Every structure is written in C-alpha cells, then in structure tokens.
C-alpha cells in the first residue's frame, strides 16, 4: 500500500467529528446507564412480587428478557450498519457493525445461559431443541462466525465487505427468532410485553422489566461507542505503522 492510499483511507477512518461528539456523550451515558441499572436491580430483587406459579424464579426474567432483547438489537444494529457500509460506503458504518458484534454475542450467551437456568426449575430441562432456543443458538453462531471473519482477513476494507455480506445473509434469522413462538409449538412462552393487544404481564413486574431493559439498552449503546472509538484508534495505529513502513522503504 502506498503512502497516499494509506493517507486516503485514514482520512475516512478518522472522523474527528465522531470522536469529539462521542467523547462528550460518554460520561453522561455511563451515569445514566448505572442509574437505570441500579434502579432496575432494586425493583427486580427487592421490590417486586414473586410469581404465583413460578415463585422467586421469575426474577431470572429481569436478566433473561433484556439479554435476549440485546441479542436481537445487537444483530439488527450490525445488519443495518453492514447494509449502510455496502450501499453508501459510509466511513463509520463498518466500524459500527464490527463493534456491535462482541456485545451482541455476549448478551446472546447470557440469554441462552439464563434461559437454561430458568428452564431447569420451571420446565424440568436445561435445554430443548425447540424453535426458539435453536434459532437463538444459531444467532450465537452467526455472531461468532462474523467475528471470526473479521479476525481472519487482514485488510480491514476486504474484511468489512465479507463480514457485511455474512451479517446481511444471517439477518433472516431475526424475524425467525421473533416469530418462532408463533409459527411453531415451542416450550418457550409467546411474547407478553410487545403484543398487538398490549402487555399481559402484571404492572408490578413490568416496571422492573422495563427498567432493566432500558438499563441494558443504555449499556449496549455506551459500550458500542467505547468499542467504536477503540476500533477507530486501532485503524489509526495500523495506518501510522503502514506510513512508517513506507517511509522506511523510501
């Protein structure tokens, strides 16, 4: 790569405006995240009733449902950013897509693990190969495959294209997960919050669930900004090294 090409790529990969804006946003975002999560945990653990059927295990819901929500949100952000990267070549889009993946993968893992911990006492099984659980497991593997693709292709521009195609192809799984409990007979219960006829969950449980979901969502976007900033820096480091190597040759 010649110095001018490195310079050109760098101009795109170093959007100063994004860095300045995100720098100002991060402190208030962290504060808001901690506040919301703290309030959510307080209600989830101390100030909400046990379920009449499930007893205290219902408290697992306040971690499980927001985790599953982030698993879906993370992939949607990734797929959307990938589409923008492929179509408009926006300089920040593939940074955004790449940075969403590890967060989404972590929360998909949490959704699966906490679901298992809830399933054992309530359904009598850690795992069942039903539509909801299997499609979420596929989501987890899509995240891992996406991250592996980024890791194996050295050139960020080529890696971004290949990973974006994978992310978009895998996006078909998102509606499959959403409607899996409707299309198939599953052990998993259907939606009880986002329904056409309104939530069917008790208000005393909807409040901690809503706070935890909001807190998790804030955490997602805060971490996403931190990771995007780190990724931009990683590219700056790469380009500075390339420029130095070029100078050494000249």
């Amino acid at each position, binding site marked *: 790569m010649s110095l001018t090409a490195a310079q050109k790529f760098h101009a795109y990969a170093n959007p100063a405006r994004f860095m300045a804006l995100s720098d100002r946003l991060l402190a208030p975002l962290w504060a808001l995240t901690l506040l919301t999560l703290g309030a959510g945990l307080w209600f989830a653990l101390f100030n909400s009733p*046990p379920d009449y059927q499930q007893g205290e295990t219902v*408290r697992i819901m306040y971690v499980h449902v927001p985790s599953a929500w982030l698993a879906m949100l993370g992939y949607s952000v990734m797929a959307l950013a990938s589409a923008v990267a492929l179509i408009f070549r926006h300089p920040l889009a593939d940074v955004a897509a790449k940075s969403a993946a590890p967060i989404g993968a972590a929360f998909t893992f949490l959704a699966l693990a906490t679901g298992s911990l809830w399933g054992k006492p309530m359904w009598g099984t850690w795992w069942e190969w039903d539509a909801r659980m299997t499609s979420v497991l596929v989501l987890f593997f899509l995240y891992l495959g996406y991250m592996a693709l980024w890791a194996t292709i050295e050139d960020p521009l080529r890696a971004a294209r290949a990973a974006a195609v994978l992310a978009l192809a895998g996006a078909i799984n998102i509606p499959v997960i959403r409607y899996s409990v409707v299309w198939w007979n599953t052990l998993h219960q259907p939606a009880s919050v986002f329904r056409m006829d309104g939530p069917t969950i008790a208000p005393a449980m909807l409040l901690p669930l809503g706070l935890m979901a909001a807190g998790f969502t804030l955490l997602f976007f805060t971490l996403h900004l*931190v990771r995007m900033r780190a990724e931009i820096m990683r590219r700056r480091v790469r380009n500075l090294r390339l420029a130095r190597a070029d100078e050494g040759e000249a």
Partner: protein
Amino acid sequence: MAEFFHMGGYAAYVWTCYGLAAAVVAALVWQSLSDWRRQSSLADKLEKAAGGRVRRAAAPAREDDR
C-alpha cells in the same frame, strides 16, 4: 435477610443467573475500556515518534472537520 438469599428454594438458579450476568457484563466493560486505552496510547506514541510531518499527513480529517 436469610429468606431473601434463600429465594424460595431457588437460590442456586436465581443467584447463578445474576452472578453470571454480572461477570459477563464486567468482563465486557473491562475488555472494551482496556482495548480503548491500549489503542489510543499506541496511536499517541506512534504519532509522537513520527513527528509533525506524518502527524499532519495521518490525520487530515481533523483540519477539514473543524
């Protein structure tokens, strides 16, 4: 208090769930922040080592954006 930790007999499931979530979130936060610190200090070091000429060449967006 003991009753609270007992979780109606489901302590093992409920507390494992919350403990696991706390561990995964803590690891994710730690990894994200330490990656940011490492990359930005590396970039600083390389820019200093390269001196003003490459610094200007390496960050043209900065002047354009302001």
